[in-house]
């Protein structure tokens, strides 16, 4: 494997009596696309949240380029998420009152880039993602697939090290979903970013470089996990 960008070792997370993660070791290489699969409730989202510094694991550690992430305070983790990570969720992540280009520019502006410059940088992403001409539409005026592509642009605009996606096409029909997923994988690759994507869709997983399977909070060998 190439250089490891992100790694989790011995990750444990409990919610009361529920053990959502039960000792997970996982690493993601530079530019690698990793699919996380598994049945509902198995701990996929929890794993993603721990890796992305959204949650603190109860035990184990998360490192980004060798640096501890889970030990940082909320403020530093928040900054890290803004600057080093990108996120694509299932829905609802775009601000409904901002036009598409400003939605994409928002992370840059939060980082201190002046608005004009940020919007210009944001608009660069629209053409390659097939969004040309809809820059000033608002999320309510976009189709689900278009909205997800805007979200992809927003995740990539800060040139993050890792993009996290939790069932990013879960709310789309299969064709649109596949198309969107291909764009996501290609665009992250193209930018040299790694991708961690939670999905139920085997086709989607197949486009990724590697996949892992979660069962009851543990990683299992994908080969053995086929049911």
């Amino acid at each position, binding site marked *: 494997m190439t250089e490891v960008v992100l790694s989790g070792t011995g990750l444990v997370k409990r919610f009361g009596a529920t053990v959502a993660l039960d000792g997970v070791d996982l690493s993601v290489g530079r530019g690698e696309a990793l699919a996380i699969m598994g049945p509902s409730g198995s701990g996929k989202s929890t794993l993603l949240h721990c890796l992305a510094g959204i949650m603190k694991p109860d035990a184990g550690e998360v490192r980004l380029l060798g640096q501890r992430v889970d030990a940082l305070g909320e403020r530093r983790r928040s900054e890290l*998420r803004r*600057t080093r*990570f990108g996120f694509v969720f299932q829905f*609802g992540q775009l601000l409904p*009152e901002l036009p598409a280009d*400003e939605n994409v520019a928002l992370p840059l502006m*939060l980082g201190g880039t002046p608005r*004009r410059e940020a919007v210009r940088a944001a608009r660069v992403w629209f053409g390659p993602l097939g969004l040309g001409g809809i820059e000033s*539409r608002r999320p*309510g005026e976009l189709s689900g697939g278009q909205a997800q592509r805007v979200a992809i642009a927003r995740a990539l605009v800060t040139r993050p090290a890792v993009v996290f996606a939790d069932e990013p096409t879960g709310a789309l029909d299969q064709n649109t979903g596949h198309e969107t997923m291909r764009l996501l994988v290609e665009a992250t690759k193209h930018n040299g970013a790694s991708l961690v994507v939670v999905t139920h869709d085997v086709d989607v997983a197949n486009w990724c470089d590697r996949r892992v399977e979660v069962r009851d909070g543990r990683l299992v060998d994908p080969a053995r996990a086929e049911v």
Partner: protein
Amino acid sequence: MGTVLDLTWRLLRGGGRRGMLGSLLTAAAVAVSTGLLLFAVGANHAFGVRADADAWRHPKAAAGAATAVEALSTDHVRGRAVAVVDLAALGGGAPTPPGMPRFPRPGETWASPELAKLMRSLPADQLAGRFPPLAGTLGRDALVHPGELVAVVGRTADDPALTGKRPDDFGLGLTATPTRIAAFQTGAVSPLSETYRMLMLVASVLMVVPLLVFGGAAARLTVARRDQRLAALRLVGATPGQVVAVTVAEAVLTAAAGAVAGAALYGLTVPAVARIEIGGGAWYPADLWPGPQALLGVLLAVPVLVGISAVVGLRRVVVSPLGVARRETPPRMRAVRAVAFAVILVAFGAVGGSLSGMGRTGITVLLVFLGLAFVGINLVGPWVVALIGRVAVGTARGPVRLLAGRRLLDDPRAAWRTVAGIALTGFVAGFLSLLNPPAGDPAARTGRIGLSVSPARAEAVADRARERLAGLPATIRVERPGRGADDVPVVITVTGGPAEVDRARTALTGVLPGRTTATSDDDRSGDALLADVRTGALTVLAVSFLIATTSAGITGASAVLDRRQTYAMLRLAGTPLEVLDRARRQETLIPLAVLGGGSLATGLFFAAPFALGFGVGGALTLLACVVVGVAGIVGASALSRPLLRAVTTDPAPRPD
């Protein structure tokens, strides 16, 4: 119907903690609205009761055979007015006066509890000596307010007090010449109490309009939160009728609970409200209850209004199941709103100046214009919000101003609803600050007593007064007739303070039968009215601020609740909470500053024709309003900060 109710109940119960919190917010808003509405209605009722309670003292000549003679005068003790009703029976069948078990016999006095207390506590030569011996205490039916000083004096029909004419008081209703009556008057008759009722009506408009705006906002708040779920109901095939029924049932149930809580809340505050002194005294708490029908009416009307407001808010969902899931570019606020507002301003500018000379019509026209001003402010408000939004977006360089401006532009009406309360209060404050007369100076009181008598009898009356006042620190002078318009040729100057003045008044009893001695200082009805206007104005302001801050707090909280998912997502993606919070503050504070200031100026404009003087008091009131208003909004919006934190700490947002 059964299924609808069942579904509604499950929606209410199944909303989870946040859904419950939302319903609670609505119920709280409705409770505050109901309480304040009851206050407005109750205060009107109380003024009505007072006006009625005062009616019997103003005699009306009998059309047929008279059974009694009634006269009224106003005496003073320690600067407080004492209403003195002289009564004499003409043969049998004299009507029983209100608050008394029987008609008074000649030579006895019935006093109100407060007057009786004073008569006992002051030396007899200062008060009790003015009246025949006490025979009983007047009941509350005879009294305007609990602390009122009233004396009913029984006389014979040929008593000099009941035969002479009494001086005209130019319709103030403070004196009445002996009149042969068959019954005591009922209903409101005195012009002074009519004035109070009119002023109370103005106050009601000033309070109720912001209240309605607030109530509407509260009602829409439930709908906004239900939009998503109801759209889902539509998608799974509920008929529009069912969706409407469920929403209305939910809104009405919540509102009914709120209304009952509001009535209870009002009940708790009645004892405190009853202490507000207006028209010379505090209130009978019972009068502040609007009466069973009106109470029931309010308790029914509030949920119905909330239900209607909910239906109006729901139209979108019912028309198109996708209407709420998809958010389109909002229609622009049309400039027609600004034009309408300008027309109202110009129209008032044209007629305002002549209103104060038009008496009752003037008041009616003013009421209409006040209503129009509220409508106008409500129309222009969202337009101004959109304008502010456009400017903010145009000039934004960083994320905070951009977020705030976009949000204002996105839904100017919602942003307006957050600040509408304060803006309308700004109008009220501006309007009232000009009606804030400088307080009369009690220290300027002199010991001048005037005896009104025809010039021909002046010397004789002065001699009798000299006799009576022997040994008291008083000088008696006879003024030459023709000087001054009033016929008060005998002027007595008493030195030594109020006790000596009261001693002199008591000593002078009967010098002019049926006429009480009047001093220019005692005739403070004008001052008192102004002071009451001030008290009323402050009360209205307090109420408005209560509405405004509650409204700001509730709309602020619900704005956070409505957007919890987006906020949570932004937070996940690393957006600092401060940025969200600052944007949230700006989207309230900037419109607040502009619109609050604008409404204040509008209020000043509308009050300008009736300005009673804008002294230090007015400026201070205005300043205090601005400070309280800004502090209220800032405080109210600070309250939703923990809420913002709470909704964004959930690391895994889910659709609900």
